[in-house]
């Protein structure tokens, strides 16, 4: 994105905020349900400065981060095994395809039965729903590794374990990164959903609780926090991706 186009984007955002403000001020919409932007911003400043929301953000980040990291570990491992060894693929394929077809919120009731409504349940749900995009992309990535590369590693005498570690994983890494990026968005969605189902902390709880206690500006402020959080995380991911996958961008640019 060029600098100019980013400024255009911010300009449009400012216009929307102004419109929102005017709609509230002049009573075009119900003032109670759509408080003016200035009120929302004031509430936002208040919950950030008082630190009230930061604790909730921290808890949500911890749950999402743990679930996401575990999902990456499990799914990359299984994805490599399934992509590389046909028998493993044949053994797991049906189970994976069935579980993958379940919309993640559908497993919340089951997770509550087995794990209660504490952190374990939330981390599990995030793990479960993040695992599939990572798994499927890892598998595709491993399958797309050029056979010449694998044979080269073999002629240099690499044993299977170091072949996977030194050749298959890096060669598949652009696909794995794609899976990880999709899963990042899913982790945020699921942490919020799970915190709305049963929790006394977390940003999802904070938003729902604000609504229930009729602190509408605070509810919007919570959503603003969430939006900024998601935006920030995604940008961090893209920065990391640009650094780690610079070779892949160069390679594909050259091939074009």
């Amino acid at each position: 994105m060029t600098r100019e186009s980013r400024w255009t984007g911010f300009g449009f955002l400012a216009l929307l905020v102004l419109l929102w403000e005017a709609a509230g001020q002049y009573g075009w919409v119900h003032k109670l349900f759509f408080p003016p932007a200035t009120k929302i911003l004031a509430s936002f400043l208040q919950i950030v400065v008082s630190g009230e929301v930061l604790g909730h953000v921290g808890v949500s980040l911890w749950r999402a981060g743990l679930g996401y990291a575990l999902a990456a570990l499990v799914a990359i491992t299984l994805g490599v095994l399934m992509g590389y060894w046909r028998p493993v693929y044949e053994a797991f394929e049906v189970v994976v395809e069935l579980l993958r077809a379940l919309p993640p919120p559908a497993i919340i009731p089951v997770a509550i039965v087995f794990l209660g409504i504490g952190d374990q349940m939330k981390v599990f749900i995030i793990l479960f729903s993040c695992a599939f995009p990572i798994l499927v992309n890892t598998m595709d990535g491993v399958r797309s590794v050029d056979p010449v590369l694998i044979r080269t590693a073999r002629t240099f005498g690499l044993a299977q374990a170091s072949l996977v570690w030194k050749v298959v994983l890096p060669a598949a890494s652009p696909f794995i990164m794609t899976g990880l990026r999709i899963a990042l968005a899913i982790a945020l969605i699921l942490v919020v959903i799970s915190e709305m189902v049963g929790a006394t902390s977390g940003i999802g709880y904070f938003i729902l609780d604000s609504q229930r206690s009729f602190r509408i500006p605070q509810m919007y402020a919570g959503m603003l926090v969430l939006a900024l959080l998601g935006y920030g995380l995604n940008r961090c991911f893209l920065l990391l991706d640009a650094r780690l996958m610079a070779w892949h961008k160069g390679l594909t640019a050259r091939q074009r």
Partner: protein
Amino acid sequence: MLEVRDLRKEFQPLSGQPVVALGSVSFRVEAGQFVSIVGPSGCGKSTLLQCIAGLSRPTAGRVLLHGREVTGPPEGLILLFQEYNKSLMAWRSVLRNVRFGLENRAGMGRAEMDAEARRYIDLVGLKGFEAHYPWELSGGMQQRVAIARALVRHPEVLLMDEPFGSLDALTRIELEDALLRLWESLRATILFVTHDIEEAVYLSDRVYVLSHRPSQVIEEIEVKLERPRNQLTTREDPRFIGARHHIFELISKEMAKA
């Protein structure tokens, strides 16, 4: 030292009759020799090298290295692939690609490996490109990286599959001579596949000519030209021209059968 006995390889395509790539191929290579294999396109030269390298199981027949049957990639034998650009690791710099040739060997520190890798990068004429990535290099430079990566390991046997096939004439001449110099200093055994008859004669002590599919060795030609060879005088030598004519006629006959 390296012996191929009655090697046969059939492929079952997705549809239709099985393809017999190698009919019955037999030959031997003595230690320290430079041996070339020429044959019409599609006669199974790449297939043959993959079987020798232990990367592909023959349908019948055996490959013996020091009298022992090859069943998997043998220690001390490296295959340089025809698709050399795909054999390089796009995520590693030139230096780290060449270092890969040493990495899974015990008893060498990182610094020592890097020093050795740099030495070979120099030898193939890539000094200054250590930090570049393979996809930032030209085809000829990529091939040099692949050669350096193989040689840094001091393989006893080096199998090369049309390594200079896609290079321009000048780069090719330069790399032919560089390869000969390195071969002489390393005393390796090289089995070199090419479809270029002149190149085969120029480089080799011996040339095996393969027939059309299903292939077998139809002739063995000793090349009795002095070394070091010279791009001008060697190629003007009557013995060179004689060998070239002879092989050319053999291959033309094979192509006509196809």
